[in-house]
């Protein structure tokens, strides 16, 4: 299953890129699984995702919790808590 991943703000800087296409194994079922898998294959991602309290996710432009399933997702964005306004 090919997924497009977007990174924003601090997460983007720590990982060193703004987007990538990945093909996670079938054992990666939820957003939390995906974050663990990405952190395990990339030292920058391990740093960016070290504190889950400072990480948020969106699937296909909708905010989701980390236990959300990624089945059927096209694009997943990972980013810090927002600071607009």
């Amino acid at each position, binding site marked *: 299953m090919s997924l497009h991943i*977007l990174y*924003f*703000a*601090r997460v983007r*800087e720590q990982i060193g890129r703004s987007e990538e296409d990945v093909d996670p194994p079938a054992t990666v079922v939820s957003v939390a699984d995906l974050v663990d898998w990405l952190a395990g294959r990339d030292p920058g991602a391990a740093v960016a995702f070290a504190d889950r309290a*400072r990480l948020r996710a*969106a699937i296909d*432009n909708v*905010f989701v919790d980390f236990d959300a399933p990624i089945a059927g997702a096209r*694009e997943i*964005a990972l*980013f*810090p*808590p*927002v*600071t*607009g*306004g």
Partner: protein
Amino acid sequence: MRDVRLLADDFAPGDALARLEALGGGGVASFTGIVRGGDGLAELLLEHHPGMTLARMEAIAAEAADRWPLLGLIVLHRYGALVPGDRIVFVGTAAMHRGAALEACHFLIDWLKTSAPFWKRERFDDGRTRWVESRVEDDAAVARWNR
């Protein structure tokens, strides 16, 4: 009237207020957010999610229009590089009575701060940069609108 925009350039709050005043209501409320100077801040960079930010702003505006009897609302939010004194955000509401206008305006800015995907990076005179962290006070501010 509902006008929600994500802007690279500055905007004119006076023009937005005039449009709200022309709707025939009894009250117009507004909030303008401005880049705070001090501590050697040279630039504030506002990053956004091109596929998601405007849609979230529109959803927040729709929620406000649902909750209060508004004649109109305008939400303008900038992105990109700003300097101290620059306007970041404008929220304006028009209603028959002040209560709806004031409450909806307050709701809109609280929700924009916590649920529209924007991230702020500060750059200081000495070249240091720092991502602004979300504040628990902002989460508390938005929690009071939960029903």
